[in-house]
């Protein structure tokens, strides 16, 4: 393969050149404020840029080596990069150490990838592998569920874990809700967070101004969000594809801007505070109960623990999420659910068969919105403070990303994607701003390497000719 080396070097050099063009101004000239006068000055970062370019050169070289099947040289190069990054050598900034190490790790993974996938696929062909595969397909969901149910009783259930669990489950629920709209009915909704906001503000306003409790408002919030879904859906659902997407995006922004500016109702950017949390048979989760009520600790005769509230919230959202999932599973078997899926596949054929596309889409839209409304009022009850900042477009984008990255229409995929996209970044909160950068790059990389999502395989809800024997197709 000696002949290929000059080509690879040239390729790596070109990559570094492009990176140099990308970085020279944005990275090389760091602008800093000087004093109070409106002026900026430069803080040159060419040292950092130079090191980064060298890393990019060798990284690209390693990738070409791996692509040529030269596994060991690529792994050696990756290991060398990890060693340089971890060494006490003083690079211009600590970020560069991370950059070098991460580049090396990715390179090693890339080089080892073909043999790893080969090993996995050959294992799946052995009898034991087949059993594991079968069990995995059938029981993965139940396994996850058991894990979720027993989590609060395990020793690792400290406050941080439970907080994270509640957050992940909220996104799982939102993902399952949006899955009805995007995965089943095939409508691209970029403004899903609007319904989430409607649910959250419904609960916040009804509870703080009219004294209604969480359980009374929950169905109301769902209905409220669903009627907003109908309100939006009715005029626009005859639009196709991307026109619908931009209208939903616009609708999401309209709701956010109205919440932001209708100060009399929503107190605008200041948000709504001191929202009561959910109660358990009228008992509140607090150390001391307000007059006329009792605390859960008193009712059950157990010592007060601030974790109880979190565990309670955790089970509420778990049940809500499971209801969403179960509902979706049952809907798929009903005529309307079949009509959604048919509509996703071919609208013209559906019209020819007498399905009313607008009404069918409207039901999907309203039901998806309803679940977002439930999740929203849960969110308000959990946070006890909401402001328009929680309902920006980026939230819609993250929920959509969870659905698509999970593999559209796959329920377990949504869980995996939510854990990956929400859990990991929260866990690495110390990384600060690098977190969102990594989040964006991870989205791109998952899409590039698994464009059909993490769980790409999906059983059709119904087959024309039932498959007789397993494993034949």
């Amino acid at each position, binding site marked *: 393969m000696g002949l290929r080396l000059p080509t690879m070097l040239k390729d790596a050099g070109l990559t570094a050149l*492009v990176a140099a*063009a*990308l970085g*020279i*101004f*944005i*990275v090389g*000239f*760091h*602008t*800093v*404020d000087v004093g109070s006068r*409106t*002026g*900026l000055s*430069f803080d040159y*970062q060419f040292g950092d840029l130079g090191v980064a370019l060298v890393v990019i050169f060798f990284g690209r070289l390693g990738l070409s080596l791996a692509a040529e099947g030269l596994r060991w040289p690529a792994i050696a190069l990756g290991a060398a990069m990890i060693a340089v990054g971890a060494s006490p050598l003083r690079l211009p900034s600590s970020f560069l150490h991370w950059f070098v190490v991460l580049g090396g790790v990715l390179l090693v993974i890339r080089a080892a990838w073909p043999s790893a996938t080969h090993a996995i696929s050959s294992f799946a062909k052995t009898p034991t592998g087949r059993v594991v595969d079968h069990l995995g397909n059938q029981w993965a969901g139940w396994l996850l569920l058991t894990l979720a149910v027993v989590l609060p009783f395990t020793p690792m259930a400290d406050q941080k874990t439970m907080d994270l669990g509640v957050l992940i489950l909220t996104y799982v629920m939102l993902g399952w809700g949006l899955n009805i709209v*995007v995965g089943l009915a095939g409508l*691209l909704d970029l403004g899903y967070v609007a319904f989430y906001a409607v649910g959250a503000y419904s609960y916040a306003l009804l509870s703080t101004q009219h004294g209604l409790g969480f359980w009374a408002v929950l169905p109301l919030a769902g209905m409220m969000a669903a009627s907003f879904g109908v309100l939006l859906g009715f*005029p*626009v659902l005859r*639009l*196709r594809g*991307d*026109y619908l*997407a*931009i*209208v939903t995006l*616009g*609708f999401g*922004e*309209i709701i956010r*801007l*109205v919440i*932001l*500016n209708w100060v009399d109702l929503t107190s605008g950017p200041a948000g709504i505070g001191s929202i009561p949390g959910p109660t358990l048979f009228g008992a509140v989760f607090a150390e001391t109960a307000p007059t006329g009520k009792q605390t859960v600790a008193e009712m059950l005769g157990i010592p007060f623990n601030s974790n109880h509230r979190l565990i309670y919230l955790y089970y509420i959202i778990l049940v809500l999420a499971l209801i969403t999932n179960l509902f979706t599973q049952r809907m798929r078997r009903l005529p309307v659910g079949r009509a959604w899926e048919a509509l996703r596949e071919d609208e*013209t*054929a559906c019209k020819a068969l007498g399905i009313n596309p607008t009404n069918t889409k409207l039901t999907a839209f309203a039901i998806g919105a309803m679940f977002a409304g439930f999740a929203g009022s849960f969110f308000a009850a959990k946070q006890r403070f909401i402001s328009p900042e929680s309902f920006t*477009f*980026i939230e819609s*984008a993250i929920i*959509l*990303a969870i659905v*698509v*990255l999970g593999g*559209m229409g796959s329920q377990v995929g949504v869980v995996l994607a939510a854990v990956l996209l929400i859990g990991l970044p929260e866990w690495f909160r110390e990384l600060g*701003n*690098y977190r*969102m*950068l990594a*989040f*964006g*790059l*991870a*989205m*791109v990389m998952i*899409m*590039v390497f698994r*464009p*059909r999502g993490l769980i790409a395989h999906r059983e059709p809800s119904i087959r024309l000719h039932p498959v007789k024997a397993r494993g034949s197709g």
Partner: protein
Amino acid sequence: MAYFSQQLINAITLGAIYGLIAIGYTMVYGIIGMINFAHGEVFMIGAFISLIGFMICSLLGIGSAPVAIVLVLLLAMAFTTVYGWAVERTAYRPLRGSFRLAPLISAIGVSIALQNYVQLVQGARPKPGGQVVSGGFTVFSADGFDVRVSWLQIIIVVVTVVLMAGFTWLIASTSLGRQQRACEQDMKMAALLGVDVDRTISLTFVVGAALAAVAGMLFLMYYGIIDFFIGFLAGIKAFTAAVLGGIGSLPGAMLGGLLIGLIEVFWAAYFSSEYKDVAAFSILVLVLIFRPTGLLGKPEIEKV
């Protein structure tokens, strides 16, 4: 009347900037049918490169404004196009032929990554700069109200008109334009007839990024302050403009940009500035209800 004329002048200036960004969206949509969410971020990077360019010019002692503007314009266009090209090459090209939502999610990822990248390397604080042109003249006075046009507004409108004319010529009568239109109609057939589809799509992104860079520079000069987040709102508005005009149609993008500028400025001037974005989006919804493919869009032909 005087107040109205003043607002009209402001609206046309704003609309010109939106129109320039909208072309990038509409071209990419026309050719590969994807919403390039990262385009707003490319515009933001163009604005940042312009800011740095203006600072370098003043460091080098280039005092004359026209020279500085031309230099920075070329610099920003040259280096922003690299971003457009690199984004297409790394995040979209591997997904070509994949299902419809894959490039969209990838684009949202690129958008988040670029925003945070700029925030990390340049800081989150708003950056002032780029105000090299000042002054203007009074067109007429009525009812004790002076209608003023600043030199900058004239520059913005002139640059936009020149670029759009050049761009229309590029699409209508160069070989690149022919190839682009061919790919837009039928990518497979174009490839069979010897059009290098990958190269054409790359060039589409490059041209779009160049226009976004110009818009970024004009935005910087007009407002005098930028931060890493400007790409989001400008991108959404420009995309709304592209849809309003009929996505895939170039005159539509220009018209849409102008309309969004008009709606925004007049709503802010006569009603309330808080709800100007709500007005823009509401009018988009209204237009789409009555003309589902936008103002100048061609109706889609459904084939079974």
